[in-house]
């Protein structure tokens, strides 16, 4: 429980740092001038990334809540709990797969749905994946060292949780990279 709490705090801190970095980047750019009442139109990729980020984040948070509520050991031993959490994570991965397929179709069609700016944002989106995974691993490392100081004492259930958390953080960071890319440019 302490490990998961620490992970959530670390991820919250990472999100705060990211938000500050985005705001600072925005301040350096000239303001966007639009007609009164007009809103900046969104691009198809921007809308897709926003929805997929939301629909990936929600099941991931729900799965994390299930594991945090029952505890890692119950998650490991109880089939219903494990299947529920895994099912939620698979739903999130399914949404991500849809995102990938949609972009693949747009790229193959080359009909202007994705323009060069979209492609540049897509290319720069993975920049946040490595830091996100490092923060996730650091949170696990600090939490597990604190919770299990003895040599060889860390239960193997945490290996699965580390795998899932890194995978989902990688997916979320990629989608967030696209959403943030539009805010930064």
């Amino acid at each position, binding site marked *: 429980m302490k490990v998961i709490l620490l992970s959530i705090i670390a991820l919250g801190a990472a999100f705060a740092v990211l938000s500050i970095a985005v705001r600072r980047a925005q301040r350096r750019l000239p303001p966007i001038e639009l007609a009164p009442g007009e809103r900046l139109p969104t691009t*198809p990729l921007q809308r897709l990334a926003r929805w997929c980020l939301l629909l990936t984040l929600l099941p991931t948070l729900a799965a994390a809540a299930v594991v945090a509520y029952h505890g890692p050991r119950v998650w490991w031993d109880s089939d219903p709990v494990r299947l529920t959490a895994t099912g939620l994570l698979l739903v999130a991965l399914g949404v991500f797969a849809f995102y990938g397929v949609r972009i693949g179709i747009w790229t193959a069609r080359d009909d*202007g749905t994705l323009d060069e700016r979209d492609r540049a944002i897509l290319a720069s989106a993975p920049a946040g994946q490595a830091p996100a995974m490092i923060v996730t691993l650091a949170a696990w490392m600090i939490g597990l060292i604190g919770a299990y100081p003895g040599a060889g004492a860390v239960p193997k259930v945490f290996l699965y949780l580390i795998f899932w958390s890194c995978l989902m953080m990688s997916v979320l960071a990629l989608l967030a990279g696209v959403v943030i890319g539009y805010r930064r440019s």
Partner: protein
Amino acid sequence: MAKATIRNDIRRLRFEHGEMTQQALAERVGCTRQTIIMLEQGRYVPSLLLALQIAKVFGTTVEAIFTLEEAR
């Protein structure tokens, strides 16, 4: 080396070409309207390909639309 920015006259050229809308220009050059807005406001620097396509739509040269402005 002095920091330089690229300014453009896309907005003026649109109005000189029958008040062409941003959407119409976007469709003609194959990009999104958001990209045209970002271009006009100097928040995005286009590729040479897009710059040439915009110049072709307005029947002019890239140099006539885009100018390099060196910061002091």
